[in-house]
């Protein structure tokens, strides 16, 4: 169904807003998607390999692994890599946030603080943009999802894992992942997953909850959905090498002397589940949860602390929004910069208004011309 102007008299009952999803689809395709994914975990857990496998790109081509002596004095850094992936005409601008140096040093106390600060900075930037004057082109650099890699060799979450997850669980969607799952036998994998789930409940860490599927979905889909939820945390294996396994079709996997692990085989690991949930079904939901819940939570606490720096026990957020926003001072940039920004944005506004007027004038002209020709 395309756009239909001027519906005829026969289509009285048919209004036509069923075409709305298509309009949305078209607009989104034009706009493109952007998604920011953070990966965190100790080094050597196969994070880079997994990301390359997930998105079938080589994001880490120019990576330089530091030597052991360099690692002795390494501190946590935050690295951002961007890549544009296109598939089926849809462009996705993927930003990957990496945290090399996490959990590597002998003393890892507070090594998660730079990560927390980074996430908060992105929220702050968005808050400023949102409260600014020109909101046309806000760049959303907020972290939409954090894949946290858990070592398969431990007995569940380590103290460092718990500390990191506690620090970020209210600020970002966490998807815990068991790395290098080909080191575990099936029974061990199940036991480890159960142990991690128990620990997450004990420590009251809120990981990303996949929303329940609608009640009108068919049984098959519901069963699949339930299965996927049961297998959290996902036990994944990553590989970018294609292996020819005994004459059968080539698969991506890891070849050992005792067999080959196939990355995309649901019996071998949960890679397919992770990819499906992260990319195919829940990408938009992750962004929405980041915007509606996590960002709003940050915004509320930020504005509360600005408004009455002493009083912590404020009423609900709705009360806050009813009291007009002009009472509450917005996060202000230094004055000279603000002036410049205002002037720039004014210019832009004026230019755009002019263009709009010109276009309207043109349309008017063509319409009147058309009427004239009709009349004639």
């Amino acid at each position, binding site marked *: 169904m395309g756009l239909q102007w001027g519906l005829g008299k026969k289509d009285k009952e048919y209004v036509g807003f069923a075409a709305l999803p298509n309009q949305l689809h078209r607009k989104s395709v034009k706009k493109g998607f952007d998604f920011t994914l953070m990966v965190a975990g100790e080094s050597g857990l196969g994070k880079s390999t997994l990301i390359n496998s997930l998105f079938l790109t080589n994001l880490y081509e120019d990576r330089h692994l530091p*030597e052991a002596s360099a690692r002795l004095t390494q501190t946590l850094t935050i690295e951002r890599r961007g890549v544009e992936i296109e598939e089926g005409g849809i462009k996705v601008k993927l930003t990957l946030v990496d945290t090399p140096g996490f959990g590597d040093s*002998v003393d890892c106390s507070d090594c998660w603080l730079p990560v927390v600060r980074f996430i908060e900075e992105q929220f702050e930037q968005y808050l400023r943009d949102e409260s600014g004057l020109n909101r046309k082109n806000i760049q959303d650099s907020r972290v939409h999802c954090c894949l946290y890699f858990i070592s398969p*060799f431990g007995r569940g979450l380590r103290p460092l894992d718990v500390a990191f997850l506690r620090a970020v669980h209210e600020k970002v969607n966490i998807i815990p992942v068991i790395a290098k799952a080909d*080191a575990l036998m099936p029974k061990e994998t199940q036991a*480890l997953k159960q142990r991690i789930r128990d620990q997450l409940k004990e420590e009251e860490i809120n990981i990303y909850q996949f929303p329940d599927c609608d009640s009108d979905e068919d049984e098959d889909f519901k069963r699949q959905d339930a299965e996927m939820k049961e297998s959290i945390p996902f036990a994944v294996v990553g590989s970018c090498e294609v292996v020819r396994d005994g004459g059968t079709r080539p698969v991506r996997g890891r070849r*050992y*002397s005792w067999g080959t692990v196939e990355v995309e085989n649901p019996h071998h690991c949960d890679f397919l589940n992770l990819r499906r949930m992260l990319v195919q079904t829940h990408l938009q939901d992750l962004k929405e949860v980041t915007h509606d819940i996590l960002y709003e939570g940050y915004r509320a606490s930020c504005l509360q602390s600005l408004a009455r720096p002493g009083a912590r026990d404020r009423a609900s957020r709705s009360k806050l929004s009813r009291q007009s926003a002009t009472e509450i001072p917005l996060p202000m940039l230094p004055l000279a910069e603000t002036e410049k920004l205002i002037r720039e944005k004014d210019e832009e506004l004026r230019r755009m208004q002019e263009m709009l007027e010109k276009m309207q004038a043109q349309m008017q002209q063509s319409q009147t011309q058309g009427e004239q020709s009709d009349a004639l």
Partner: protein
Amino acid sequence: MDPLRQSPSPCSSRPSSPKTPPCEMLGYVGIEAVLDQLKIKAMKMGFEFNIMVVGQSGLGKSTMLNTLFKSKVWKCTPPGLAMPTPQTLQLNSVTHVIEEKGVKLKLTVTDTPGFGDQINNDKCWNPILGYINEQYERYLQEEILITRQRHIPDTRVHCCVYFVPPTGHCLRPLDIEFLQRLCRTVNVVPVIARADSLTLEEREAFRRRIQHNLRTHCIEVYPQKCFDEDINDRILNSKIRDRIPFAVVGADQQHLVNGRCVLGRKTKWGIVEGQCRDSAENAGEGGLKIQAHPAASGTLNTHHRAQSGQAHNQEADRPGNQVPPCSEEDSVENMAHCEFPLLRDLLIRSHLQDLKDITHNVHYENYRVCRLNESHVLPHGPCWVNLAPTPPGPSVAPGPSKVCRQTREDSDDNEDDY
């Protein structure tokens, strides 16, 4: 004064003997029977071996110990079990006496749960160093008594097996810090733990990188190059040094692979073979156990084959599965999967006595020199350092701060004095 003994750096394990010209034998005298006499005495007395395993939790330390000595010397925790990680490093020792072909071995294994598991692992090696030095101190105290025991009980740690997690990159800062400190005090054998998560190429690359790291940071692991006595030793040890660290896979479940019975890990894509199950099964807890050596004579094998049906491994996969005992020809262990046999051969079959000798002649002597220097028992010699006098007393368990005195810390105390 023998200059070799006084030097703080490790010295050769045997003092140089004067050269004597060989003498021509005119008939059979029977000198070679002295070897039999030694053997009989040794078997009567029995041997002692103390081994320590260090590594993060979940790397398979207990499984390796059990497989090494083919008995349940240590209780393994199944993965996923809610075992609380200890807040501080603990040292647990267990002693067993195992016997084989009339040779008794008093084995003490020391485990170190809680190592490297905390957020802040700074100085987590101090309790371990303290324990090792405590054993040296105990031996020293027995040695300086006026009326000594005939056979001083030896609780000194002869070997420390360090488990490196299979990251595939290089040694972590914690590994380097630990190895640097410990290789000066005890024989350290690093192994790559849980090596079934690395492909063969990754394993080799990882091994080369670790060797490079060890060289860069001057970490001398066992077998140390400076203690090779002659050319044969050097050749043999070079081969071993080329393969260190060994990539091990711990397994205690039995499976049938191509007609062979192996201890392995069964996954959906194949069975990782750890070690060939010999005709003797894993026996029960503690006490005397009878193990069969795979290179034993044929008669002994058949004798134990009959017994193997009874002693059944509790953790055997699918008890209904008939796992036939393997004969000598079948006991080929799959080196491509797991290098555990190399480790076993090194620790038990070929270098056990060498480990004890180096511990006694080098590490213990270094410790002794430091302690005696401190307590001014030795007269002033070329290496004497003026230290604050520590009361030598019958302190069997001194605190780690007093005991962990290496020569480089001596100079610090020296400054404190003045």
